[in-house]
């Protein structure tokens, strides 16, 4: 078990390492969860401990860290050592970024790979981050909900925004890209989260000023397109809560999904001004949509019609969303208590 493959040459037999005395892992006697390391991994780690103890910053140290990371991409200590060594040796970090592209292709999508990339971009600090943005867009194609990638995209825009390097054009193009992601899969909640950042959360987002109406329209259209899409409902509710808007004014767009003979006065929707469901609902859209009932109940609460709101919650609890019967019953009791 000292040597795993016949082609492998132990470091002790390589002249470049002749001056280094390897240090064994200090596990103590009889450890639990010992891992039966391959010969290569144990060998590489024995030498890593030696150079780390000596704080050696060298080419061979870089090679060694790469060898280890390829065997264990979650080895945060080795990643940290590699980054410190790259900086100490003033290496060309663009080359390192290339290597990271290769790592990502191999699907080594660990926390460390993405964090290393974040540090590289911080140090390289390009005047125009669009190459990196394009890289991220490409890498989301095969894996459109990769959490690390999305978090990194949020960071990238935020970081370069603080440096004043995100042009209006870039913001605009990003929104277009995000809308395309949502057109391809309107249920991709990661893309909805990105839209929120672009339209609401980022500094200087336009929605807070005059873009709110278009944003509400966007969310309502998404609901009309896929009425059972929780992402779209959550986005709409998020907007209303964030901007402290009433739910009631949008009810005409919601009521068709409640399939309830509503107590609402049936007003003319001529002057409504928001998107209504276009004609007949899509096939396979059983009514009521539970989240539409929840919306109705919250709107009734807002109007002070606690009793009616409670009835809607009771309906959810006993008929239309039985999985969450306890939660809806809790909401019903709240109506009664207040």
């Amino acid at each position, binding site marked *: 078990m000292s040597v795993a493959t016949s082609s492998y040459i132990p470091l002790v037999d390589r002249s470049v390492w002749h001056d280094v005395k390897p240090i064994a*892992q*200090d596990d*103590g*006697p*009889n*450890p*639990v*969860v*010992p*891992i*039966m*390391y*391959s010969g290569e*991994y144990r060998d590489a*780690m024995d030498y*890593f401990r030696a150079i780390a103890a000596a704080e050696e910053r060298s080419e061979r140290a870089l090679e060694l860290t790469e060898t280890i990371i390829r*065997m*264990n991409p*979650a*080895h*945060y*200590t080795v990643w*940290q050592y590699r980054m410190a060594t790259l900086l100490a040796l003033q290496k060309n970090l663009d080359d390192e970024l290339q290597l990271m592209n290769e790592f990502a292709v191999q699907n080594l999508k660990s*926390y460390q790979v993405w964090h290393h990339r974040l*540090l590289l971009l911080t140090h390289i600090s390009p005047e125009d981050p669009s190459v990196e943005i394009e890289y991220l867009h490409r890498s989301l194609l095969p894996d459109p909900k990769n*959490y690390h990638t*999305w*978090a990194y995209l*949020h*960071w990238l825009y*935020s970081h370069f925004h603080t440096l004043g390097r995100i042009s209006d054009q870039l913001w605009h193009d990003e929104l277009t890209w995000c809308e395309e992601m949502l057109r391809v899969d*309107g249920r991709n*909640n*990661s893309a*909805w*989260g990105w839209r*929120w*950042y672009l339209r609401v*959360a*980022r*500094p200087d987002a336009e929605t807070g000023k005059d873009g709110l109406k278009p944003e509400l329209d966007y969310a309502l259209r998404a609901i009309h397109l896929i*009425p*059972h*899409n*929780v992402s779209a409902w*959550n986005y709409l509710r*998020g907007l209303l*809560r964030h901007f402290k808007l009433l739910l009631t004014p949008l009810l005409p767009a919601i009521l068709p999904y409640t399939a309830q003979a509503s107590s609402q006065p049936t007003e003319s929707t001529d002057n409504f001004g928001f998107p209504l469901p276009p004609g007949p609902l*899509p*096939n*396979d*859209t*059983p009514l009521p949509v539970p989240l539409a009932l929840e919306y109705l109940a919250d709107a009734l609460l807002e109007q002070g019609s606690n009793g009616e709101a409670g009835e809607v919650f009771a309906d959810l609890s006993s008929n239309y969303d*039985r*999985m*969450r*019967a*306890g*939660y809806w*019953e809790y909401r019903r009791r709240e109506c009664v208590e207040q």
Partner: protein
Amino acid sequence: MLAYTPSIYSLPPTALPTNSHPSATLDEQQETESLISSLFSLLPSPTTESDDKTVLRKNEHTQFLASTFFKLPGKFVSLDASRPWLIFWTVHSLDILGVALDQGTKDRVVSTILKFLAPTGGFAGGPSNSQLPHLLPTYASVCSLAITGHPGPGRGWDELRDARQSIYNFFMDCKRDDGGFVVCKGGEVDVRGTYCLLVVATLLDLLTPELLHNVDKFITSCQTYEGGFACSQFAFPSTSALTSDEGDNEYTRASMAEAHGGYTSCSLNSHFLLSSIPLPNFPATIDVDSALRWSVLQQGESIEGGGFRGRTNKLVDGCYSWWVGGGIPVCEELVKRQKKARSKGKKNKIEVIGEEKEEDWVDEIPTPPLFNRVALQEFILIAAQVEAGGSGGLRDKPGKRPDQYHTCNNLSGLSIAQHSMKHSSSVVQSNKDKFDPTKGLPPVKPRSANGGWTSEEERQNARKEVWANALGWIEDESGEILVGGKENRVNTTTPVFNILGLRLKPFINYFYCQEE
């Protein structure tokens, strides 16, 4: 009560409506629905009575955990920087299953973990001559020592006691001005690190104002428009020239991704731990109602077996049984406090005279179960358990291999689903009455001259609140629900900490020098 927790078998197996609008998300959802529902349809309808199809196969899971505890094959090299987690997942799973370790094995666990303790403070993912200290292994190591250690030389707790100042120094090394913590030197910043640090600082009596500065705001700003929490936040330097030293005008903050079960667990639990600390205007508030709503919406439909998903429109996965399910008792407690605060506000408007005493609070009328505790148990037993006679262990979903992580998180979620855990204000009050401020370990030395508590009285008050609240979780035994019968009963894990109550109590008492 069962009217509010219907069995999967009593609900129609309705697929997610397509709305005639195909997409990749819908394809994956349909695949999972058919995978899980076919498994359920093979079985007769179970009840809460004993049933051989819904037996928790405790022996098989114990075998599975034992098979990797003393020797791991080479492919586990990807977890070489997570060995404290391998230990924690195993010893905590066994604790939940009620399997006792012999003293020899406990000693081996303790001596292994003590090798992970860095002389400069904090625990590493493996021996400290190989790896740097890191916040996540520090949580896993400390909780494993709570489970397997004891007072006395070489038994783990004395060594931890002696390392308190160095662990505190490590925590301060990780601290950033915006309230986040790097997980290790040069590492990433996210709420996992915050949570792991706060649990350890709470248990070992390490909390100081300088350690906590801005931590509440960091957590709060990870909450997304959906109500759940994201991994991290970005603090934009404020463009406003006017910054007050009281408020948080130094930064404009934005969450850094969509809401996610794992990060929601870390954030809710962190917020809960911060809420015990008596600092002015602390912690910054979170939107508790939307956190609860988001959490319960993650529970899958009957066709998906009633397990939890970790994000909106993603697939159910057994590990969220703990991450999302375990957050719901915390939400329930936070909602309850909010209600009390509101009704107190109303009352005070009417009754001007007379001071209200906190002791007068009685624990309120029980709320209905806020998530479907029966369905979650059915998911864990039927979909997450590996088939009888197989390798043992629990998994993400059918078709996936079991592992220690999913075993631990499924079992922790099972414990939460079986037992009704409440944070009791009367227990907290009686703890406070019992607290002896003359007993304690030496206070940790803050990094900056004015980073500590402003007075000994303030420090003692904080210690009292933190200790009393940590021990405030009790089981409402009338609320126990056991799918598959009494034999399936598992031990009671504590919300927020995720170790058994019977482990938490002696451990925290040791570090606060309080009597049992």
